[in-house]
């Protein structure tokens, strides 16, 4: 098991290098000359040839790409993602100061998702074909069809504009968290509940459930102790995914709710053509996703000790 974890952690390194490569070269897709647009932004006029060359040299853009990459990678490893072309601020500082807001939002949304989805999925599995089960099926279809950002706007209309129960904009206290987190969570909750249901049903058909019943174990304990835990594996993988998706989707939600997170930062950076910031954003969020998937794998391992054995030959 230790070997498995070690291998899994070691696997992070090439993935992370891949992410930095992606971030670095993605930004090079941008049309136009970075030095030129930088100069225009700073001085608000067209540069002449000499000014362009000196700007290029100052930004390090005159060196070969691999050198530029390695130089930048060296900084990234130490947590230095460069300086914003637009605001002149440290990219890392900006990301780190904005990340807690995003993390808070995504965590709250994930928790709401779980709190709604797991009990609902369990009840739907036990009371199969009941009204609740059918309603859940409809809700899951809607959850996969209704855009979260539209749901967000509807929530604002109902709870902020009409009822005036909850604030819609900004981040100032827990009541500001409710609407954006709900907007993110509701659709996912229905989908995860369906997954919980099918996963639990599958496990309830396993032989060891019969064994437990044949021991005389009460049904409630059969479901909770024997079936639920073994069916959570699929759900945990899904929750890791949900967390990542919510993190990604928060870009849209943060714009709507004026939530000062990194998603909003990225969208702002696009508007300002702030490519260093975007590049830093890719590395930063990529790192977060890779760590999330590591945590998911470890939880999975804890839930199902067979994983280490089955995957002993190589990670994934």
């Amino acid at each position, binding site marked *: 098991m230790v070997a498995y974890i070690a291998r899994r952690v070691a696997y992070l390194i090439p993935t992370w290098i891949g992410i930095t490569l992606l971030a670095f070269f993605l930004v090079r897709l941008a049309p136009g000359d970075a030095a030129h647009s930088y100069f225009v932004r700073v001085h608000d006029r067209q540069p002449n040839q000499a000014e362009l060359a000196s700007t290029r040299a100052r930004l390090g853009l005159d060196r070969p790409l691999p050198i530029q990459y390695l130089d930048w990678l060296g900084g990234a490893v130490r947590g230095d993602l460069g300086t914003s072309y637009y605001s002149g601020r440290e990219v890392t500082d900006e990301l780190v100061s904005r990340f807690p807001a995003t993390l808070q939002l995504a965590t709250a949304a994930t928790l709401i998702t779980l709190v709604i989805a797991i009990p609902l999925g369990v009840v739907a599995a036990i009371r199969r074909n009941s009204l609740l089960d059918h309603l859940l099926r409809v809700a899951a279809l809607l959850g*996969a069809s209704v855009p979260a950002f539209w749901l967000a706007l509807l929530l604002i209309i109902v709870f902020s504009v009409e009822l005036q129960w909850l604030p819609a904009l900004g981040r100032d206290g827990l009541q500001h968290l409710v609407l954006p987190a709900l907007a993110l969570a509701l659709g996912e909750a229905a989908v995860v509940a369906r997954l919980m249901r099918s996963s639990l049903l599958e496990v309830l058909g396993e032989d060891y459930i019969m064994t437990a019943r044949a021991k005389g174990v009460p049904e409630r304990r059969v479901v909770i102790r024997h079936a639920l835990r073994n069916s959570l594996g699929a759900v945990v993988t899904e929750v890791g995914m949900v967390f990542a998706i919510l993190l990604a989707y928060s870009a849209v939600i943060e714009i709507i709710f004026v939530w000062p997170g990194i998603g909003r930062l990225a969208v702002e950076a696009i508007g300002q053509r702030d490519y260093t910031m975007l590049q830093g954003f890719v590395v930063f969020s990529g790192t977060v996703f890779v760590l999330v998937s590591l945590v998911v*794998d470890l939880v999975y391992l804890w839930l199902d000790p067979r994983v280490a054995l089955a995957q002993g030959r190589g990670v994934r």
Partner: protein
Amino acid sequence: MSVDVSEGRSFQIDPAAPEPRSIVLPARGVLLRRLVADPTALAGLVIVTLAVLVALLAPWIAPHDPARQNVMNRYAPPSAEHWLGTDNLGRDEFSRMVLGARTSVLTTLAIGAGVLTIGIVVGTLSGYVGGILDGLIMRIVDLLLAFPPLLLALVVTGVLGPGLLNLAIAMIGVYWLSYARLVRGLVLAMRERDFVEGARALGLSGRRIATRHILPNVVGPILAVATLRTGQLLLILAALSFLGLGVRPPTPEWGAMLSEGQRYLASAPQLMIYPGIAIAVVALGFNLLGDGLRDVLDPTLR
């Protein structure tokens, strides 16, 4: 097992899952008949067909020029003249919705076709040729799938510069990945099957085996997944347009219309209600149809 953060939600392609079963595609008439027999799938089929028809015929359906402004008649309520009223600039909302369908639905279908084509070609190549090529392709796919595609599409569009074409390019560039993995898995499973072994023993060429014997047998599951995916693509396109990465005003597009409508949220909520309903209904149509297709193609899957 690392986290696959693709947005296809109603189905999951788990890399560690057992090899996908092959599904023999029923004859064309049978497929349609079985779909029609299932009320939910039929509803999906009707919605999708209607949406595509409206999108194709939009210029002939729209009663007004969607760009013509009339500042004297802003926020008009629904009437015989303006079925859904007028927007903040006095433009006919119904006409804008209809032409919005053209942009939203047709762009989605184009993106869907693009990702499907690339996914099938790369996935088949990777699964059938195997070896170093397979290893390399799957490494790249895995790496890119470490990101939620939505974020990647956001950043790529941002770098290329906002605009409908760039947005479509970015989405195609990102969303083919999980198809490639799905197709590769199906092809790998197929390769081991008896009839493929047989074809190989007969000395058929690799390309012929791949196109004549393997592809037809993986079409079934891909068709169901592709339909579900198209619904997701519609939502993603709307979300990124909402962020201002898609069409430029005054071109009507549902996501962009939502974004405009957001500004008049309190005074004229209908302006964001209509496009939202349209997006949800069409996405629902694709989801219903995809669910139905999956049931029809493989009743044991549920």
